[in-house]
C-alpha cells in the first residue's frame, strides 16, 4: 500500500530553505523530489542503486546524521536559486543518538560508519502528511535516508518529533575487534555518518495540473478528500491491516472422458426413440421419454382424444401423476392408472413408439412438484419400428406421391394450366417453359409468341397448351373422348385402332388436367374401344363400348379400375361395334317406371338399345334401324342399317336422333319403337355424328363422310345450312357449350372452328394437323374456352381459342336463330 500512487501535485515549487550545511537530501518524499525540475531528477537518477534487504518487522529506519552530510547536493534551477530539496526530517542534533541498528545491509561492513542505510518509505504527498507515517513496511516505496540537518523544515516541528521517534537509528556494530579497555569507555567516539545515494524503488510520476486549468478545482478537491481519508485512517475500525497469502496447490493434469450425452429435441413434441432396443424396460423408458416442454393446444387435444379412445382405465388426468422414476419401472406402470399405459408397459419389450404428452399445467392442483415430470402416458398402438418398405407401400404414401407429382408438374406447366383455367400466369423466373415442350404443332408455336397480347387485329387462332400423351398411348388412335360429369378435370380417352389391321391391345386411359404427363387410370380392355361415357349419377362409373359389341361398365374410383359388369354374356348383346354410348337420364321411360340413368347404345347391328344395370346388363331395344329404301339385293340380306350416332334431345329425353350409315337421320321416340317420326335425308354418305344444339331446341348438326356438315332445323326436311371446306370426310363435330353459334369440326387433316356469326362459308379457325397424323376426335371443354383434339398418334391436344371475339350478342340463342332465319330468308 503505497501512498505513492500517482498523485497530482501542484507545480508550485517549494523552495526548501537552505540548511545550514547546504542542501541535504531529503528522504523519500517523492513529491518534493519530483517537484523540482528535471534537472534535479537527473541528479538523483545518477545515484547508484543498491539493493537492500528488509526485515519483516516494520521498523522505519531513518538514518540521522549528526553532522552535515558530506555529500551535499546542490541543486540550482535556471535562475540560480538553490532549489535543493530540503530534508523532511532534521533531527535535533542533541537528541539523536546512534543506537544499535537492527537492520543492516549485507554489504555494509564499515564498523562505525553506516553508510548504507535505508529507510523504509513513508510517503506523503507533502510535508503536511508527516504525521501520517506508519510503521508499515512499504514494499515498493522509495527508500532513502533523510538527513535532517537544516532546521528549516516546511512544517511544524511537532510532526517531526513523531517522525523522530520512529526513526530510531539502529546501528549494528561489528564484532568488536579489540578488547574494550577501561579507558576506552570514556573516549569520545566519533561517528561519521554519510549518506548514500538515493535508491529509487518506485517512481510513480505525478500529474501536474496548472492552477489555472479547469481541472485544478477537481484536483484540489481530490487532494483534499484524500487528506481527509488519510486522516481518518489510523485508528479507524474500518481499516485493518492483514496479510494474506493464497496457497495454491500444485496443478495436476488429469484426463477425463464422459459418456456422450444424448440430446433430445425439446419443446416441439418430437418423439425420441432409443437407438437400440435391448428389451430392458427401464432402459427403454429412460431413453424414450419425451421432453415436450410446452403444452401446446394440439397436444392437449391429441391427448384428450387418445385418452378417450384408449380408455382402459378410467382416464382421469389428475390421477396419472407419476414420477419419472415410477415410469421407469414397469411395476409402477400398472399402478399408474394412466389409460392404456398398463397395456403398453407390459409390452415394453416391443415398445418403441410412445406418445407422451404433458397434461396442461393449469389442471394440476397445486401439487407444484416441479422436479417430478408428470406425464400422462398415452400410446399409439404399440407397433414396431415402421418398416421402410411398408411405408413405401402404404396408401398414404401413394397419395402423397400423387400430390407431389402434381405439384411438380404444376410448376412445370404452370403457364399452360393457368391459361387453361383462366388464371394469371405467375411471372417469376420459372416461366421459361418453352412452347416446344407442350405443343406438337410447329405452326402454333409462332402464334404463341404473341399469346399474352390480346389485340383486335389478331385473327382467332388455336393456341396449343399441352398434349396428353405418354409412352403407353403413343401410336394409338383416339377413338373416343368423354368428360367426367362430376369432375370437369377428368377425361376418359379410348384408344382403338383406326383400322382393324392394328393389333395393339385396347386401352382406356383416364387423364387429369392436373397431370398432363401420365394418366390417372389405365384400363386394358378385351377389345378395341369405340365409345365411352361417364355416368352422371355415379360419377366414377365409366361405360365402355367395344369393337366386338361388348359393353362394359367399370368403376374407376380405386387405383385399379374394377369391373362392374359387362354385356358379353348377355344374349342380346350387340353383334357389331358399338359406335355410340351414352348415359341418359330419363324421367319417364316407355314402361313408365324407369327413372334414373340408363345406358343407350347404337351399334353396327342396327339396334339402338337401352341397357339397365339391375342384374348384369339387360337391354331393351329402342329402335331397330331399318333401311328406308330398298336397295335391291341388299335389302334381302339385312334390313337393318348400322347406327353410327344418336343424340337425345336436351330437354325432351324421349326424342332422339339416330344417324345411320346410309345417310339418313331419323328422329325417333322412345315410345314408338317401330317407326321413325321423321327422317331427314340430306347426306350422301354415312353420317358420323348428329348432335342437337345445346342452346336452340330445334337445331341440330350432322356431319358425314360426304365432306359436309349440315345444319338442320327439326321442322324442315332439308338442311338449312351446309358447310363444306375441304374435300375430306368430317369425322366429328361438336357444338361449343359456351357460344351458340360456334361449333368445331374435325376433318382428317385439320380441325376447324366455325363461327356462324362471322361467316357461314368458311371456318373461322383452321388448324392443320402435323404431317402423318390424322385428327379423329373433338371435344369442347365445358368451363373454359378450350378444345381437345384427339389424333391418330395417341395424343390429345388441348387448344385454347384465342382472340375469338365474342361480344354480348354471341351469348344469346337468338344469334343462332337469327342466322337461320336470315339464311332461310335468303333462300326464298
Amino acid at each position, binding site marked *: 500500500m503505497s501512498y505513492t500512487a500517482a498523485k497530482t501535485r501542484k507545480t508550485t515549487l517549494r523552495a526548501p530553505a537552505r540548511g545550514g550545511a547546504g542542501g541535504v537530501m531529503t528522504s523519500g518524499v517523492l513529491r518534493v523530489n519530483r517537484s523540482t525540475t528535471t534537472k534535479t531528477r537527473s541528479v538523483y537518477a545518477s545515484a547508484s542503486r543498491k539493493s537492500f534487504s528488509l526485515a519483516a518487522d516494520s521498523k522505519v529506519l531513518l538514518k540521522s546524521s549528526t553532522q552535515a552530510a558530506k555529500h551535499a547536493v546542490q541543486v540550482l534551477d535556471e535562475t540560480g536559486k538553490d532549489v535543493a530539496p530540503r530534508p523532511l526530517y532534521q533531527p535535533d542534533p542533541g537528541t539523536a543518538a546512534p543506537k544499535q541498528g537492527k537492520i543492516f545491509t549485507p554489504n555494509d561492513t564499515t564498523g562505525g560508519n553506516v553508510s548504507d542505510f535505508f529507510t523504509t518509505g513513508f510517503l506523503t504527498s507533502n510535508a503536511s502528511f508527516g504525521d501520517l507515517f506508519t510503521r508499515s513496511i512499504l514494499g515498493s516505496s522509495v527508500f532513502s535516508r533523510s538527513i535532517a540537518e537544516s532546521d528549516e523544515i516546511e512544517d511544524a516541528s511537532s510532526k517531526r518529533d513523531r517522525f523522530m521517534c520512529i526513526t530510531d537509528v539502529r546501528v549494528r556494530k561489528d564484532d568488536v575487534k579489540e578488547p574494550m579497555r577501561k579507558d576506552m569507555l570514556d573516549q569520545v567516539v566519533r561517528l561519521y555518518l554519510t549518506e548514500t545515494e538515493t535508491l529509487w524503488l518506485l517512481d510513480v510520476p505525478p500529474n501536474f495540473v496548472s492552477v489555472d486549468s479547469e481541472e485544478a478545482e477537481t484536483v484540489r478537491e481530490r487532494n483534499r478528500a484524500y487528506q481527509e481519508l488519510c486522516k481518518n485512517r489510523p485508528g479507524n475500525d474500518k481499516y485493518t491491516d492483514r496479510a494474506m497469502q493464497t496457497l495454491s496447490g500444485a496443478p495436476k493434469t488429469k484426463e477425463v472422458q464422459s459418456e456422450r450425452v444424448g440430446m433430445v429435441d425439446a419443446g416441439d413434441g418430437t418423439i425420441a426413440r432409443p437407438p437400440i432396443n435391448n428389451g430392458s424396460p427401464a432402459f427403454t423408458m429412460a431413453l424414450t421419454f419425451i421432453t415436450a416442454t410446452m403444452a401446446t393446444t394440439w397436444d392437449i387435444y391429441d391427448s384428450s382424444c387418445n385418452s378417450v379412445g384408449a380408455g382402459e382405465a378410467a382416464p382421469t388426468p389428475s390421477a396419472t401423476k407419476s414420477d419419472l422414476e415410477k415410469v421407469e419401472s414397469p411395476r409402477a406402470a400398472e399402478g399408474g392408472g394412466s389409460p392404456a399405459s398398463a397395456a403398453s408397459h407390459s409390452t415394453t419389450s416391443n415398445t418403441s413408439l410412445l406418445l407422451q404428452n404433458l397434461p396442461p399445467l393449469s389442471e394440476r392442483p397445486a401439487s407444484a412438484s416441479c422436479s417430478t415430470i408428470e406425464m400422462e402416458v398415452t400410446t399409439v398402438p404399440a407397433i414396431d419400428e415402421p418398416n421402410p418398405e411398408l411405408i413405401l407401400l402404404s396408401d398414404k404414401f401413394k397419395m402423397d406421391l400423387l400430390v*407431389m407429382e402434381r405439384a411438380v408438374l404444376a410448376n412445370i406447366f404452370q403457364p399452360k394450366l393457368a391459361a387453361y383455367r383462366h388464371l394469371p400466369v405467375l411471372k417469376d423466373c420459372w416461366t421459361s417453359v418453352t412452347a416446344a415442350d407442350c405443343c406438337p404443332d410447329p405452326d402454333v408455336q409462332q402464334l404463341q409468341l404473341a399469346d399474352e397480347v390480346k389485340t383486335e387485329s389478331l385473327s382467332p387462332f388455336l393456341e396449343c397448351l399441352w398434349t396428353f400423351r405418354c409412352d403407353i398411348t403413343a401410336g394409338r388412335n383416339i377413338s373416343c373422348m368423354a368428360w367426367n360429369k362430376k369432375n370437369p378435370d377428368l377425361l376418359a380417352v379410348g384408344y382403338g385402332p383406326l383400322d382393324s389391321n392394328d393389333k395393339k391391345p385396347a386401352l382406356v386411359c383416364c387423364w387429369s388436367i392436373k397431370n398432363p404427363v401420365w394418366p390417372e387410370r389405365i384400363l386394358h380392355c378385351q377389345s378395341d374401344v369405340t365409345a365411352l361415357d361417364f355416368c352422371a349419377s355415379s360419377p366414377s362409373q365409366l361405360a365402355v363400348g367395344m369393337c366386338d359389341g361388348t359393353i362394359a361398365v367399370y368403376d374407376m374410383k380405386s387405383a385399379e379400375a374394377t369391373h362392374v359388369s359387362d354385356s358379353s354374356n348377355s344374349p342380346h348383346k350387340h353383334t357389331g361395334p358399338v359406335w355410340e354410348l351414352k348415359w341418359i337420364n330419363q324421367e319417364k321411360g316407355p314402361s313408365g317406371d324407369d327413372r334414373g340413368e340408363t345406358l343407350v347404345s347404337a351399334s353396327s347391328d342396327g339396334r339402338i338399345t337401352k341397357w339397365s344395370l339391375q342384374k348384369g346388363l339387360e337391354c331393351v331395344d329402342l329402335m331397330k334401324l331399318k333401311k328406308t329404301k330398298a336397295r335391291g339385293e341388299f335389302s334381302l340380306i339385312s334390313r337393318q342399317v348400322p347406327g353410327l350416332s344418336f343424340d337425345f334431345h336436351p330437354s325432351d329425353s324421349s326424342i332422339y336422333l339416330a344417324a345411320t350409315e346410309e345417310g339418313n337421320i331419323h328422329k325417333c321416340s322412345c315410345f314408338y319403337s317401330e317407326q321413325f317420326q321423321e327422317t331427314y335425308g340430306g347426306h350422301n354418305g354415312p353420317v358420323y355424328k348428329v348432335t342437337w344444339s345445346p342452346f336452340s331446341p330445334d337445331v341440330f348438326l350432322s356431319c358425314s363422310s360426304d365432306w359436309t356438315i349440315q345444319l338442320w332445323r327439326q321442322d324442315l326436311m332439308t338442311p338449312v345450312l351446309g358447310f363444306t371446306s375441304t374435300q375430306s370426310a368430317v369425322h366429328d363435330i361438336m357444338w361449343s357449350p359456351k357460344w351458340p353459334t360456334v361449333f368445331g369440326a374435325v376433318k382428317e387433316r385439320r380441325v376447324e372452328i366455325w363461327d356462324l356469326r362471322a361467316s357461314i362459308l368458311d371456318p373461322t379457325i383452321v388448324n392443320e394437323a402435323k404431317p402423318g397424323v390424322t385428327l379423329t376426335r373433338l371435344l369442347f371443354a365445358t368451363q373454359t374456352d378450350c378444345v381437345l383434339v384427339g389424333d391418330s398418334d395417341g395424343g390429345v391436344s388441348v387448344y385454347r381459342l384465342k382472340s375469338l371475339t365474342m361480344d354480348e350478342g354471341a351469348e344469346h340463342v337468338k344469334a343462332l336463330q337469327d342466322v337461320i332465319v336470315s339464311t332461310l330468308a335468303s333462300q326464298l
Partner: protein
Amino acid sequence: MSVEETIKRIQSQKGVQGIIIVNAEVLICNAGIPIKTTLDNSNTVHYAGLIHQLVMKARSTVREIDPQNDLTFLRVRSKKNEIMIAPDKDYFLIVIQNPSE
C-alpha cells in the same frame, strides 16, 4: 401404377433435382434415416435434419390454430429452387425442383 414407376416419373420431370424419402422419427443420435433418395448421403442427411425441424414447426403452427387441422403439404419456394414436402406421421417425402432449368 407402382410406386417405383411414379418415383421414376417424378425424377424424370423437368428440373427435379432430387427426391428424398426419410423416416420421420428423430432418433436420439441421428436424424431421420433415408429410406430412399436420389441425392448423395451427406446432402440427404442435411436436408432431412433441417426439414424435419421446419415441418415440426409448421405442423405445430397449423395445429395450434386449430387442433383438428393438420399439415398436409408444405412448399418452400426460394430463389433457386422449390422444396416440396409431403409430411406424414412416419415419413417425409421431399422433392427439390428447379423448373427453370
